[in-house]
């Protein structure tokens, strides 16, 4: 909830148009919810990014030290969920971003990094 608002405000400040603000706020909502649901707590980092071609972007990092995702490939499929969710959070977020990276292990938890360029 907080993440949504903060991310949208940052997207506005960076000059993203409305549809991209909405995409970024939605990604923030989905992935921040995953942290709370599966790890209990973690952090969301939002930082401006600069593409090699000069475009501005927004990078969002979602980190937790939970138990990690046992099967990332399955988790990235539409409709797959081990929780109560719809299974749209991860695959949906990937479609809303330009870059999407997920690193997860039982020892170090999960880190999802997404970037959207203007």
């Amino acid at each position, binding site marked *: *909830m907080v993440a*949504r*608002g903060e991310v*949208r405000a940052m997207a506005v400040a960076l000059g993203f148009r*409305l*549809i991209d*603000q*909405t*995409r970024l*706020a*939605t990604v923030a*909502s*989905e992935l921040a*919810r995953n942290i709370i649901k599966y790890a209990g707590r973690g952090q969301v980092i939002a930082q401006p990014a600069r593409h090699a071609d000069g475009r501005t972007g927004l990078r969002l990092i979602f980190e937790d030290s939970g138990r990690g995702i046992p099967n990332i490939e399955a988790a990235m499929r*539409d409709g797959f969920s081990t929780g109560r*969710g*719809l299974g*749209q*959070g991860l*695959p*949906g*977020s990937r*479609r*809303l971003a330009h870059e999407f990276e997920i690193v997860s292990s039982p020892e170090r938890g999960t880190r999802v990094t997404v970037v959207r360029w203007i």
Partner: protein
Amino acid sequence: MNGSQRIPILKVGRVLVVPVQVDMDDQTVIALQERILSELERTGARGVLIDISLLEMVDSFIGRMLSDIASMARIMDARTVVVGIQPAVAITLVELGLELRGVDTVLNVDEGIKLLRDEFGAHDEADDEEDDELQGELHTFGEPRHHA
């Protein structure tokens, strides 16, 4: 007082009108769902009109809630219409992979009321008289007068 109490549920004829004007967290969404269903039971309304024109974001959780409300309301013999989805929200919903299954969507409240009214008219002639009232004014009241 939880967040959902800030969202009014208005009875307009035999329709519950729910203008969602605040960004909702998950708990607010769940509480709102429960309130709508108990209002359906209490009032015997036949339709639910949820206005989300002021919502700047609908994520998978809110989307699922809208589908769930529609399914549950249907079991209680009521039809649900969601009105006023912003273009950016519609695009994001589709990209997320949400279909809002079982939910009718229309552009504005007028269309929503019209759609629900047509639905009642087709099923229940006794509603016609009251449905005509809906065209003129929006009012909140208890029991339908002509049943008295």
